């Protein structure tokens, strides 16, 4: 048995990694809806979900159950093949794009097979990612076309036009980073940002600030989020391309949207914010205790808050969660070896969640673009600025050598 495992480790280990990643991402997706509803509710001075479980923490579970048990009607005269294909394609591509993201620096051996934190380590990972996102538009366009509904069709058309337009700016905005790193591999782009060990200062965000702004704006448009969510502008198009979808098929579009938000946040972190690198200089080893310093007080606060919760279930669950968090924090101090392993993923996730928060924050504050504004902004402003950024970076590298 053991021999069999080591012989086929090259296929078993990736499958296990994929299973873990998909489970993690789907859970994060579910809780992202909870975070989004809570954050927007607090921006608008409401409470948000707070009935299902303490602080509404079980709301994603209830939503998931609801999606599964809802009736899934088939609208009349739809193009059946395309109608069924669209949500699967969207979700599949969204999840696939996560495969090339490296989450941490470590390489380790499982069953004698050397592997790393992430699914695939391709040397053109950035291009692969763009290739997968480029295909993502089909899911939305097909959903809009196949539904046989004018709202869906308009939503699908809008989104294809929008995605074609903003893909150019998205691709051009990262050329500056590629020029600096000289490599398509996301891993080497992060490693290049280690620089001379000064932490934050050698991240790409400083030489590539314009590039980052273009990237982030174009990325929001690619993921169809506010203020670029015209494909599903509810005041004009009911729900845009997914008007005719219900039940689990609707949920698939929803999960795909959140997954692409995560992918884009990971990409922004890797390209411009040093990926898993700590913002502090490498000599400041005391910053390694930061995860514990954050986790223990947060855990204690959750315990304290949970003991006063209004019902018994909350008074049991919340202190339990708090104790677990504080215990993890304490364990990291006791076992410095685990603490070292955790550093990379900790910073990576901290940055990714900051970006996800910005996404939600923007949804809570910004109004939607008008369609002609969206198009002229993309073509007449964003694209020229990204090209100018490429030229500027190239000239700078030519004049001063490496940036």
């Amino acid at each position, binding site marked *: 048995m053991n021999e069999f495992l080591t012989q086929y480790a090259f296929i078993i280990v990736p499958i296990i990694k994929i299973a873990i990643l998909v489970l993690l991402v789907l859970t994060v997706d579910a809780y992202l809806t909870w975070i989004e509803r809570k954050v927007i509710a607090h921006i608008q001075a409401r409470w948000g979900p707070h009935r299902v479980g303490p602080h509404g923490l079980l709301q994603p579970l209830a939503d998931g159950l609801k999606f599964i048990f809802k009736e899934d009607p088939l609208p009349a005269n739809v*193009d059946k*093949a*395309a109608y069924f294909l669209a949500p699967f394609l969207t979700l599949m591509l969204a999840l696939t794009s996560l495969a090339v993201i490296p989450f941490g620096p470590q390489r380790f051996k499982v069953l004698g097979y050397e592997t790393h934190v992430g699914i695939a380590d*391709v*040397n*053109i990972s950035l*291009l*692969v990612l*763009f*290739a*997968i996102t*480029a*295909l993502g*538009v*089909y899911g939305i*366009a*097909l959903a*809009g*076309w196949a539904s046989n509904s004018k709202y869906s*069709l308009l939503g*699908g*058309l809008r989104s*294809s*036009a929008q*995605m*074609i337009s903003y*893909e150019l700016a998205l*691709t051009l905005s990262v050329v500056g980073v590629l020029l600096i790193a000289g490599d*398509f591999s996301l891993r080497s782009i992060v490693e290049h940002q280690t620089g001379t060990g000064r932490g934050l200062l050698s991240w790409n965000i400083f030489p590539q600030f314009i590039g980052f702004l273009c990237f982030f704006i174009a990325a929001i448009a690619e993921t169809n989020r506010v203020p670029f969510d015209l494909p599903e502008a509810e005041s004009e198009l009911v729900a845009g391309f997914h008007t005719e979808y219900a039940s689990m098929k609707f949920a698939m579009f929803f999960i795909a949207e959140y997954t692409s938000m995560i992918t884009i946040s990971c990409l922004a972190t890797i390209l411009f914010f040093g990926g898993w690198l700590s913002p502090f200089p490498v000599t400041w080893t005391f910053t390694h205790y930061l995860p514990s310093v954050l986790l223990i007080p947060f855990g204690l606060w959750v315990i304290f808050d949970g003991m006063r919760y209004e019902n018994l279930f909350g008074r049991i669950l919340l202190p339990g969660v708090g104790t677990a968090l504080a215990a993890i924090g304490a364990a990291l101090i006791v076992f410095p070896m685990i603490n070292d392993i955790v550093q990379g993923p900790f910073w990576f996730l901290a940055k990714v969640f900051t970006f996800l928060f910005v996404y939600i924050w923007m949804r809570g504050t910004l109004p939607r673009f008008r369609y002609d504004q969206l198009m002229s902004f993309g073509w007449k402003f964003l694209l020229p600025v990204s090209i100018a950024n490429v030229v500027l970076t190239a000239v700078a590298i030519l004049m001063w050598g490496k940036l």
Partner: protein
Amino acid sequence: MTAPLLIFFVLATLAVLGAVSLILQRHPIHSALSLIVVMVALAGLYLLMGAEFVAAVQIIVYGGAIMVLFVFVIMLLNAEEEERTNFSKLATYAGIPLAVAMTGLIAAAIARSSGALPAPAPSGALTSTKTLSMLLFSEFVYPFELTSFLILVAILGAIVLAQRES
């Protein structure tokens, strides 16, 4: 059968099936989708040959940009299902002999190349992005620049044509 050979046959079958379906489908959107399958299968074949950059570009340019435009235009025109017409005389009298001749030509070419096919270039030799761009900007710089000039002319032409409407 080795794993690469197996993958080759799966991708090749997919490409051929996609191409056949492209012709047989009655609806323009289904034809366009079949073409996308062909493009993606071809990208897989390039990947199998170690040409990672070409594979990625194949999907980004053909699968992502050009085919999206196709689908977009078909959706915008709201094209209906095609009606079957009687085969034209030209298709019967010129098409079938031409198809037979083409098949014969390919078969002859395959029959001639006796023995093992040349092994694909090892990954990174000529296929890496760096060497590819070095070649593009040194040896093939004139064709490359001419192509970009052609594309620029096409873009300008499109703008002129679009502006005449209003």
